């Protein structure tokens, strides 16, 4: 342990003597985190979808007496998906070469079926196999759900209009036929008049019974609006965009910023540190009994851990201060800081051990830095792919620390009951650190053989 501490102190002293490198190591991942966060957000939230309108939908579509502004509806859809109007041939071609993620076709007769309210019209969704198809399907299902919800509102309004006609009476139209309705209110008045003016007790009795029915029916139909809405939407989602953290301060971005910083800093630092020992021709001297090779590996992993904790705490403090200054609710940045530090240690060790392995394989410091960057970048991107997009990528990313680090940081900062996630991800990170560390130690034999 003494030798590890001596080597660690030497590395930190060396690092301190390169302020430009130190600054760029801190700034670069933060900028990168913000950029990737933005890309991830928009890439995952807004798939490009070709919109093929074979029915030539009108600007205004009237369904059940309710008018829909079609361009306005499409604009609303554009918030969650980028709908690009085009002809069917072009859409098919772009779907096949991957320029769009999916294709939504409005078949001929769609509007007339919708207006008829007798059968459900169909939208056709075409997606490519694999890739983002699952994600796009989810997005499109969300889109159809949204359209259905709006149509339901229209249907309910139309139905309630009929109910109003039954209660209050008046003129209406159904399936193109005009009709007049007396209405329950007027019927009640008429029955009361019959009851009052008739001399036949049997007629008066029947008029009373009918009046009772009319009152009961009026009361029941008065509550039909809420009943219809409840039947159409057993569970309603109330969206309150003001209640959560702003996107810039979201748990997701903070976790990504931390994990990205660590992924690059720790891997590059550890890879360069171990390879520079060889560049400086000191491994032979150290391996002569001064330092065990496993201690040399441990010293570099520890260097990564120290860097991870230092940078991670700074990032967490920045996010925490911003959250406090802007009075953002929804997280617990301060009480959870100790948990976060544990995650930084575990993630730093896993990334560091991986970096040492890269450095051992690369052997020379400049090569090690380049290889570390080239390796870290795709592994980070694998971990950034949203769940449900590419299943194979998810499994591959499990073999590397990034996704586990993100999960750990999110759980440690914002989960109400984080312990199960923390234990699971800590075990992953610890296991990966041991596996990569052992592989690096084996690889170190090449340096003295």
């Amino acid at each position, binding site marked *: 342990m003494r*030798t590890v501490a*001596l080597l660690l102190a*030497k590395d930190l*002293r*060396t690092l301190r*003597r*390169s302020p430009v490198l130190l600054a760029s190591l801190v700034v670069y991942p933060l900028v990168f985190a913000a950029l990737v966060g933005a890309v991830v957000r928009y890439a995952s939230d807004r798939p490009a979808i070709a919109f093929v309108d074979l029915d030539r939908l009108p600007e205004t579509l009237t369904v059940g007496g309710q008018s829909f502004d079609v361009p306005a509806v499409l604009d609303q859809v554009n918030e969650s998906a980028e709908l690009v109007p085009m002809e069917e041939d072009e859409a098919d071609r772009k779907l096949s070469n991957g320029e769009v993620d999916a294709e939504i076709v409005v078949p001929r007769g769609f509007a007339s079926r919708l207006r008829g309210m007798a059968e459900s019209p169909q939208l056709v969704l075409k997606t490519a196999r694999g890739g983002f198809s699952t994600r796009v399907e989810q997005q499109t299902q969300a889109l159809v759900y949204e359209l259905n919800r709006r149509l339901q509102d229209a249907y309910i309004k139309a139905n309630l209009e009929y109910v109003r006609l039954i209660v209050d009476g008046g003129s209406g139209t159904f399936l193109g036929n005009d009709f007049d309705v007396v209405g329950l209110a007027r019927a009640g008045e008429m029955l009361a008049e019959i009851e009052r003016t008739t001399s036949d007790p049997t007629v008066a009795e029947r008029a009373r019974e009918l009046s009772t029915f009319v009152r009961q029916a009026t009361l029941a139909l008065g509550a039909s609006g809420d009943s219809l809405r409840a039947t159409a939407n057993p569970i309603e989602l109330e969206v309150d965009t003001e209640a959560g953290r702003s996107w810039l301060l979201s748990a997701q971005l903070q976790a990504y910023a931390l994990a990205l910083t660590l992924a690059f800093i720790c891997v590059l630092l550890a890879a360069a540190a171990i390879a520079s020992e060889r560049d*400086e*021709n*000191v491994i*032979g*001297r*150290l*391996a*002569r*009994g*001064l*330092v065990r090779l496993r201690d040399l590996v441990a010293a570099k992993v520890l260097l990564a851990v120290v860097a991870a904790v230092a940078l991670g705490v700074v990032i967490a403090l920045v996010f925490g201060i911003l959250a406090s200054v802007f009075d953002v609710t929804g997280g617990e940045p301060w009480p959870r800081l100790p948990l976060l530090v544990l995650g930084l240690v575990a993630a730093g060790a896993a990334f560091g051990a991986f970096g040492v392995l890269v450095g051992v394989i690369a052997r020379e410091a400049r090569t090690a830095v380049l290889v570390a960057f080239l390796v870290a970048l795709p592994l980070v991107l694998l971990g950034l792919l949203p769940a449900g997009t590419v299943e194979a990528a998810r499994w591959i990313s499990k073999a590397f620390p990034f996704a586990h680090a993100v999960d750990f940081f999110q759980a440690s900062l914002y989960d109400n009951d984080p312990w199960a996630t923390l234990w699971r991800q800590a075990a992953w990170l610890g296991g990966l650190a041991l596996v990569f560390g052992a592989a690096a130690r084996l690889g170190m*034999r090449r340096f*003295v*053989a």
Partner: protein
Amino acid sequence: MPLLALRRVSRPSLSPCQGRRTLTGSLLSARGITKRYGRVLALAPASIDVEPGDALALIGPNGAGKSTLLSILARALQPSAGSIETPAGAVPRVGWVPQRPSHYQRLSPRENLELFARLELVPDAKTVAGRFLALLDLPDDDRLTAELSAGNQQRLNLAVALLAQPDVLLLDEPTASLDPRQRRLLWEVAAQVRGRGGAVVFATQNLEELERFATRVAVLVGGELVFDGSLAEFHTAPEADVFA
């Protein structure tokens, strides 16, 4: 007033009392050590003993295996076969000065010496580092080692090797980048190691050094040890024309 004046500076020395131990028999015995890099045979099976008081010169053309043999004797390189034996009881301390400097370029000479002294478990690393800086005329300021001349770097290399008071000093072409004064200093230090019952093994391409400082000569050619004998025997051996 003379234009040039010679100033004699008293230089600290490796005290013969420091680190003196009683070691009996060969200090190091290499038995059939071989080194292969894939299909390339860098060192054919070689056996050689390093005795107390030896000034053993390893000579041979470039690529003959001298550095490989020294690195294996220093235990900085693992042999593909064979072993290094040491006397039972007190294990000799070995100082190694590789051809290429082996210290940290982004540390100052003092920081390097203090670090390696601590790793060597030398008590009072600060004092010892200061002593070796003075002994080898090394700058004791904030300059990084990378900013030093090649000669200074080579002397730092030697200083690091001397930290543990070695019984055997292994020098790989140590004077290549030293000026005459620094060379003399190096051989003074080497003589001190021998003087306290140790030995010096040095690889060299310099015949003058061989004649002046060697007591024994080993000749390597193409990775094979072809001669091992006294300097007098070497003069009459056919292997003496290895540089011819």
